[in-house]
């Protein structure tokens, strides 16, 4: 019973922990394994993710009949399944809302599949914004 107050405080904090707004350096750390995948450097990934989701894992964007989820803005059209497109090809064999949590393991696995199949062109922000001036996306602390 003495632990009632701390328990109360912790339970208030718990829902707040679910949402995740990464920083550039946190993301660089988590995405280390993707550096060089598909010929794309780490700062290019960081830059692309900044422009499509602003490092926010809970980003959901409607896109003309389909919806894109999470840090990598993965679409329910072919890659994951949700209520909007139940007949989706679901190549990553996953429920789309799994891309909204702060565990990026499943996001990265699916992003790699997208890179294998479509390359970095799947993310239109990359070419105009992430082909040059990439120093700004490096984490100095790493």
């Amino acid at each position, binding site marked *: 019973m003495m632990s009632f107050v701390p328990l*109360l405080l912790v339970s208030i904090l718990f829902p707040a922990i679910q949402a995740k707004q990464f920083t550039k350096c946190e993301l660089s750390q988590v995405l280390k394994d993707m550096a060089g995948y598909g010929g794309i450097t780490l700062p290019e990934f960081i830059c692309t993710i900044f422009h499509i989701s602003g490092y926010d894992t809970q980003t959901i964007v409607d896109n003309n009949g389909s919806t894109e989820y999470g840090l990598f803005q993965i679409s329910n059209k072919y890659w994951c399944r949700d209520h909007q497109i139940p007949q989706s090809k679901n190549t990553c064999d996953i429920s789309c809302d799994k891309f909204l949590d702060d565990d990026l393991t499943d996001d990265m696995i699916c992003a790699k599949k997208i890179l294998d199949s479509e390359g970095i062109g799947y993310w239109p922000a990359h070419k*105009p914004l992430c082909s040059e*001036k990439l120093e700004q996306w490096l984490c100095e602390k790493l």
Partner: protein
Amino acid sequence: MRFREPFLGGSAAMPGASLQRACRLLVAVCALHLGVTLVYYLSGRDLSLLPRLIGVPSPLQGGSNSAATLGKPSGELRAGGASPPLPLDASSEPHPSRGPGPASNLTTALVAPTTAVLLSACPEESPLLVGPMMIEFNMAVDLERVAKQNPEVKVGGRYAPKNCVSPHKVAIIIPFRNRQEHLKYWLYYLHPILQRQQLDYGVYVINQDGDSMFNRAKLLNVGFQEALKDYDYNCFVFSDVDLIPMDDHNTYRCFSQPRHISVAMDKFGFSLPYVQYFGGVSALSKQQFLTINGFPNNYWGWGGEDDDIFNRFDRIAHTKETMRLDGLNTLTYKVLDTQRYPLYTKITVDIGKPS
């Protein structure tokens, strides 16, 4: 504070006692919260008291290129320096001026400089500037009152300095849909600033008709073309409706190169979100705008189009190839309505849908 002895009584070993301690703690926290809220509420009546109450250091000095963003009406930003008079009336709809036809409205809107020949050019830097300003959004704005406070501004939002001739003939183009509250604040703050900057300017609000996705860039192209029908503007400042400069040295005019005016915005921690960012407020001369064939028409919805514009300036950038294919030379739209309000000209357009 004294609490009554609990009915259930008992020693500290019993569960009821620790629960009561927890309750006391909760009540104390709530009382503290209530007290703080009360302080803020009462201080909200006269904001100048608040720094004194909590010993906050003097308000921050805005940089010369900084801007404040309009958030929710309760949001606020502080900067030292002169503060404009605060309007206290409830807001009301502006009265459009309805003449017999657009032609006569134009004649009255244009400032005819019959005495211009006798005036000298305005100085390079206006002597009327005040520097950093206090920008707040927690008061109601009444546009009729703002019009009275700016009697030199002519119908359609037109002004030219009376005592000198300005080389800066600036059309300020604001892409717009359903942001009347933001627009009121914009007009309230910007008209005095633009007059102090001694600009020969006009304010054009380009209103996208219909419900399809907002196309900021196309509206700016429309603004360029429509403004030129009124007057031979040589400079175009494209501004989002929710951006207010925090220092009037930040002149809304053109330079030898296209200029990004809103480089340091409070919502981005006063630094650029990324190096190539060109959104917000930018200034392009008529010649610069024509050289890049204006803005792309085909970016619908959020984002991208201001980045494409940055690429048009960069000689080696890829989208230079699409520059000739998508821009002023392919612009199509239909003007549905033109209203000359006292403080601005509002042009409602049908710009079509994403293809």
